[in-house]
């Protein structure tokens, strides 16, 4: 099996870290020499989104397609036609950053048929056990079901992005693996990777399979 599917989509509960994961995933693919573009499908949250990392992505030669209104303070849920290029042009890798919850996944519905017919994709559920509305596997399942219904697509894997922001410890990450495994058992979906900051990578690298290091992170005062 090849390492990456042609299309990778990240969805999940809002605030689970989808954008952060998607941006870092794109950087990782680029570092492996792959031609990759990223689309910001978030029509819900006008505050934190992929476009905030536009400069960084551009610096690394990663194409970002997002609403021309994103970050412009115009609270308008519109998406550019250019996003179809990620679906239609098959010789470049594509990453989709889907908005939070079922509401955010609404936008994915219109690309779902094309992505499914190409049949070279993975739809990953980003989970953070430290978020208040996804603290039990049952709550995660509920959100997954809502997203699948709205997006008209089924999840193919999980991303364990459990974190407490800057206060995350190695113990927190280790502790979250059990949680992710529980979700994995119930859904039958594999944990594709667990995210970890550079700061605590060394502490957990021998204890968790499939780590992805978060290199680029937004910071607030």
């Amino acid at each position, binding site marked *: 099996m090849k390492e990456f599917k042609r299309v990778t989509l990240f969805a999940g509960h*809002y*605030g689970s870290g989808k954008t952060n994961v998607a941006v870092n995933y794109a950087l990782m693919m680029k570092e492996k020499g792959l031609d990759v573009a990223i689309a910001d499908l978030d029509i819900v949250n*006008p*505050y*934190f989104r992929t476009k905030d990392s536009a400069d960084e992505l551009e610096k690394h030669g990663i194409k970002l397609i997002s609403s021309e209104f994103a970050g412009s*303070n115009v*609270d308008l849920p519109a998406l550019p036609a250019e996003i179809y290029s990620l679906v239609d042009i098959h010789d470049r890798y594509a990453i989709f950053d889907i908005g939070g*919850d079922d509401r955010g996944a609404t936008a994915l519905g219109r690309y779902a048929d094309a992505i499914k017919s190409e049949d070279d994709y993975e739809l990953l559920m980003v989970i*953070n056990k*430290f*978020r*208040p*509305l996804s*603290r039990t596997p049952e709550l995660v399942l509920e959100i997954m079901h809502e997203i699948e219904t709205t997006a008209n697509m089924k999840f193919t894997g999980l991303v364990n992005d459990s*974190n*407490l*922001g800057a*206060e995350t410890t190695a113990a927190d990450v280790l502790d979250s693996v059990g949680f992710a495994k529980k979700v994995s058992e119930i859904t039958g979906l594999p944990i594709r990777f667990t995210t970890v900051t550079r700061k605590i990578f060394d502490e957990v690298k021998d204890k968790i399979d499939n780590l992805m290091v978060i290199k680029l992170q937004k910071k*607030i*005062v």
Partner: protein
Amino acid sequence: MSEKVLMKGNEAIAEAAIKAGCRFYFGYPITPQTEVAAYMSKRMPKIGGTFLQAESEIAAINMVIGVSSTGKRVMTSSSSPGVSLKSEGISYLAGCDLPALVVNVQRGGPGLGGIQPSQSDYFQATKGGSHGDYHNIVLAPSSVSEMALLTAKGFNLADKYRMVCMILADGTMGQMMEPVAIDDIVIEEVEKPWALTGTDCKRPRNIVNSLYLKPEELERKNFERFAKYKTVEENEVLYESYMMEDADICIVSFGITARVSKNAIVAARAKGIKVGMIRPITLWPFPKKPILEAADKVKAFISVEMNMGQMIQDVELAERCKKPVYLCNRTGGMIPSPEEVLASIEKVNGGEQ
């Protein structure tokens, strides 16, 4: 729940309200506070509470009046333009002496303005904001955990004084995520003999009303209300004093700009400039006393705020023009950087400005 969770400020408000016994939320979505409503819509049905997305902000605040009249804890939330729409109802709540929690996650204005954070509703929040003689208690959180703690405190204060308590946050506070443990929420139960709960033919009817056509009666009502406000001013002032012991310059700042200012203070002290901060946590009642006391020790004040200079007027009134008060501000959705605040401190320290 003593374990920490990663929460947005808006979610912390919602969860703290639920923990504080609020089972009624009426609102209307508006960026950047929509997560309060979104969170309530998920949680309230699971705990037997009521979440209702009203047809407008005006409808929402009138639903708040209705529930509050029955003595139940109730809240609404919005952002600047939405709070303006709710203002009429807030005056009616004040006129009826009804408790309620109103959240304003501010964005840039006036008018529709923008969706980025601001503190430009300071006047509206602290000076009444609607018609008539009245005050709201106004709490200004500066972290996600304070969003939670002050929400719970706000319900207690609202019940205790039969007043509207407003949480005055901003878009950054609402959207930013921090680890919090919402576990030390104390519900202070208050008897509400005035509430409309049904008489069972065992007591005289209660009346909740703000209409007083006899001027003598309305004047008396206002005198009574202001006697109550005086008690609030005497007993409920909250502020944080930061590095003020040896300060030559006193920053006054609340909410997100107080966080920015802390970074600037640390940087200024590294350069040998003695600067501290008084951070009002209650914007009304305003911490007049500590500011007046500081006026005898410092050589200047700097009001750091995200508007064209609103709180600065209260700082000048509080310190009675003993020392100059300078303004360091951004507006329209812009946040001052620590470097900008530091530059302002250096300017004031050098005697320029």
